């Protein structure tokens, strides 16, 4: 069933789900929504499962025409949203009629917004996921961002008879200053004590050379003991690698699956989701926690995602 026609694609809008797992050994990155929390919230607000596909909107939003009556939700970075000429709120179920125009302004806080539709976006599974991986040219809509004229398929499902809103206390605020918890390693021993101190006591700015593959940061150089290079090994989202110039790069979800720079630390899972909202100019400060503390926070994050649908308020 055709659900949307793309009138304007926005800066970079892709279909994403929770990710493509199990193919790192084939060189295929995990991909998936950069902000897992907002993606999941968008889905549960229209009665979908967390793994259903949404549209990930980057910095400037698209303009879509609804081709059928349906329900949508928009979450993530703060963006002005209109249905026809009416302002519409984020973080709640919205009903749209056939012919309605859904338009986004610029994302003001954060970097990415998520648009879910009742039943989920219907694109074929590629290697077990609907996520778009642009570098590889597969997933989503022909492996590329949306373009004008695309018609997006949905599923034929009955609409919800209630509408929901996410409790205010669960709505994240993206302030442009991110405190990211990390676990040291796997190559922290390649950095001098001074280098490790610099990493934890400095603020780093996200540069314009930042996208779904990773964020280049600018700030005080982190000193290696000697070399910066290693024999290439596996990269996962959240890994923080430091090339010879000392400025860290945070690996994100579409990154190459292997790399040859020493990794000082890895961001914890909930903070990788938060980092999905960091945009050029934003500031990041890192703090160290133990693996045990990290896994405690990660388990809490998974539990929150799992129980989100039961925490919604009926309107």
């Amino acid at each position, binding site marked *: 069933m055709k659900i949307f026609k793309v009138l304007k694609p926005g800066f970079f809008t892709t279909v994403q789900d929770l990710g493509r797992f199990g193919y790192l050994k084939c*060189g*295929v990155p995990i991909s998936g929504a950069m902000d897992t929390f907002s993606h999941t919230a968008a889905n549960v607000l229209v009665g979908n499962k967390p793994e259903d596909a949404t549209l990930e909107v980057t910095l400037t939003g698209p303009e879509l025409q609804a081709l059928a009556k349906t329900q949508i939700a928009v979450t993530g970075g703060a963006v002005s949203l209109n249905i026809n000429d009416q302002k519409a709120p984020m973080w709640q179920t919205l009903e749209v009629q056939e012919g309605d125009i859904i338009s986004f302004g610029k994302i003001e806080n954060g970097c990415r917004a998520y648009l879910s539709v009742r039943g989920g976006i219907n694109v074929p599974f590629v*290697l077990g996921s609907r996520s778009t991986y642009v570098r590889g040219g597969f997933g989503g809509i022909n492996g590329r961002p949306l373009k004008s004229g695309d018609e997006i398929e949905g599923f034929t499902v009955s609409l919800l008879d209630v509408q929901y809103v996410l409790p205010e206390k669960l709505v994240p605020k993206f302030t442009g200053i991110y405190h990211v918890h990390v676990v040291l*390693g796997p190559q922290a021993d390649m950095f001098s004590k001074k280098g490790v101190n610099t990493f934890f006591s400095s603020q780093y700015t996200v540069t314009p050379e930042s996208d779904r593959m990773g964020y280049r940061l600018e700030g005080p150089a982190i000193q290696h003991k000697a070399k910066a290079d290693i024999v290439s090994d596996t990269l996962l989202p959240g*890994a923080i690698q430091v090339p010879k110039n000392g400025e860290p790069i945070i690996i994100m979800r579409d990154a190459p699956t292997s*790399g040859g720079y020493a990794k000082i630390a890895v961001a914890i899972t909930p903070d990788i989701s938060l980092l999905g909202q960091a945009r050029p100019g934003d500031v990041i400060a890192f703090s160290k926690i133990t693996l045990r503390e990290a896994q405690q926070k990660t388990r809490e994050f998974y539990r929150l995602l799992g129980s989100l649908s039961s925490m919604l308020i009926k309107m």
Partner: protein
Amino acid sequence: MSSPRYLPFGDTALVIEFGKAISLEINQKVVALGKTLEEAKIEGIEEIVPTYRSLLVRYNPLKTTYEKLVFQIKDIESSPKLDIVRLDSREYTIPIVYGGEYGPDLEYVARYHGLTPKQVVELHSGKKYRVYMIGFIAGFPYLGVVPDEIATPRLEKPRLKVPAGSVGIAEKQTGVYPCEAPGGWRIIGRTPIKLFNSLQQPPTLLKAGDIVKFESISEEEFQILEEVTTKTGFLAFEGIGGNENF
């Protein structure tokens, strides 16, 4: 060999590092442990990724802990049985047209070493390579090791676009770009063979532990083969299997 190091990789993975160098002996251990762990189906392990000299194990922290996994993996890793793991390694011949527009750096590599382009081709296609790992981009095989006579440093400034099928050299490594990508390897030729197809299972032609030999072909042969591979997706000319002692 000293016993491997176990290192946490964030809150969802760990790394078992067998050494710091590119070596056949180390990579054989990596691949053997990877296969054994896959077969062991340990609770909580979601994915096992072999690299040159380490194995990354991605796990679900809701189902297991770092300490528990280290204990379970050490038990398997220290078992003498690991030395006789039979790998289903295969051998492939990959045709390449060397030089010209297909291999813009062939002349440079030759000059760098005081060789003729023909000698570079003979050296590059004159030996068998091991697939040490697949990484970087979908289906990219890291092959080693190239003869010292043609080992060449990367470009100082990487190209923004390297065409699909390009075969490059970076120091003692050689590899094939399965799709167009930015890259700094010295490109000496191109293959019409597709190494990756997202619609096939598994999506890659090669896996860590496989053996690859390159064969020099003409431009005409390249074009004929390219027509076939474009129609059919992937697959090289498969040779013999069972090269676990390579």
